[in-house]
């Protein structure tokens, strides 16, 4: 195959896919006022997202916090400065690790399920059936899913932050000889040093996870709605959804951090 044609074809597909996702997000925003008609679906989707992601989030967050404390603590001990371990673990969890872990877990568990569900509906004519009944799939299927993840991702992130910090405290006390009191006092001081009701470290992390929730749901819905070609197409849709979600989590995470800590 001609390499030039292959490259342009690849780029065309990517741009086309990105355009579809942006268009879907804009259409979702346009149908937002109709959400009162979809409250049941919204609650169902939010509940499902919570149930699917909660156990994995708890386990991964606890170990992530523990690893973070362990790796940082080893270096801090060399300088005799383990007193700041709570500060570092709390800030890292709230600013970056909590939203990132939650986003990746939601992409893997809920995003993949959304892509599979809508992809199956697409290949079995259910999406066409909705259109034939003059029911807008964006309003009926996409809106409740996007809102559900936009709400659930920050909620799970709060939990992830807390469990991660707790995981770090266990390691700090058991392996690094940092007293639990010292660890928690430094962690709380770090998070409340700005003196505002909602510290910057927390609200930037929550905003990040809100953005991740919207991105994961929109990308996954788009992958499902564009599925074609039977079971193979559904499999590809799931793969596309998870891959694009993880890429977006990393890129958007960088953009939000850069905006709040360097630009503003």
């Amino acid at each position, binding site marked *: 195959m001609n390499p030039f044609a292959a490259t342009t074809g690849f780029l065309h597909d990517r741009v086309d896919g990105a355009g579809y996702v942006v268009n879907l997000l804009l259409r979702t925003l346009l149908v937002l006022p109709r959400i009162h008609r979809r409250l049941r679906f919204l609650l169902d989707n939010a509940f499902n997202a919570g149930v699917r992601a909660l156990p994995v989030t708890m386990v991964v967050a606890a170990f992530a916090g523990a690893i973070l404390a362990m790796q940082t603590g080893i270096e801090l001990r060399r300088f005799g400065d383990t007193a700041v371990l709570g500060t570092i673990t709390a800030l890292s969890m709230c600013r970056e690790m909590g939203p990132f872990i939650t986003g990746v877990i939601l992409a893997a568990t809920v995003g993949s399920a959304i892509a599979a569900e809508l992809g199956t*509906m697409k290949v079995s*004519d259910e999406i066409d059936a909705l*259109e*034939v009944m*003059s029911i807008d799939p964006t309003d009926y299927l996409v809106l409740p899913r996007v809102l559900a993840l936009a709400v659930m991702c920050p909620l799970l992130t709060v939990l992830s932050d807390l469990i991660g910090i707790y995981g770090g405290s266990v390691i700090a006390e058991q392996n690094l000889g940092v007293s639990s009191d010292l660890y928690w006092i430094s962690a709380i001081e770090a998070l409340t040093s700005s003196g505002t009701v909602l510290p910057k470290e927390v609200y930037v992390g929550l905003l990040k996870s809100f953005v991740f929730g919207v991105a994961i749901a929109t990308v996954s819905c788009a992958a499902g709605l564009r599925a074609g070609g039977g079971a193979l197409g559904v499999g590809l849709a799931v793969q596309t959804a998870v891959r694009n979600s993880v890429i977006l989590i990393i890129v958007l995470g960088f953009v939000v951090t850069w905006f709040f800590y360097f630009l503003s």
Partner: protein
Amino acid sequence: MIELQDVYKRLGTRDILRGLTVTVPKGMNFVLMGPSGTGKSVTLKHVIGIFKPDRGNVRVDGQDVPTMDQKQLMALRKRMGYLFQNGALINWLSVADNVALPLREHSQMSRTDIADRVHEVLELVGMAHAHAQFPPNISGGMKLRAGLARALVTNPEYVLYDEPNAGLDPIISQQIHELIAEVRDRLSVTGLIVTHSRACATQCGDRIGILESGRLAIEGSVDEIVHSDHPLARAFMGIGSD
């Protein structure tokens, strides 16, 4: 009346329809047959406005479908029912909720009126007993009957049937054929039926058209097609063609 005039449609790199002209008179069941990939289902999607023709015209009761805006298209679709190959029921809704869906979304009917109407159409298709079941737990024939109930619940003037007996055994197929004929006779609904099945064509149809390479190769009454010497008619209507 449904009219397609000189309709051309390309999907990807393939020319699916190449100058298709078909007229479906009111009150009749028109059966569209033809080899796979000749554009039968694509024709139905043009009639309901999911596809727009690259060239040519699609009219329903004199109104141009391709030029309709979203509002006009919604109004047209409310007058039409569509039975998909496998029923295309929404998996997480019960049979009754699936049938009620178009009414809940678009009508101002009360809950009780919707429930009564749903019961009425489920009764008509012999599915009242399964109203609380979910699509993954019912057979292919039941899904089709539920799909037909959903297509009929808004009292449509037209119903488009996409392979209504695909994958069904002869006994269930026979029931579906009788149901389609009954819908035409009792409710005066105009039908456009896409099928490969001789039994479906002869039992449900008033007129038959056979597609070849994206255009109509032969058209006539059921009798004319059954007794035609045209090779396609013989291939589809010959003994053992089911």
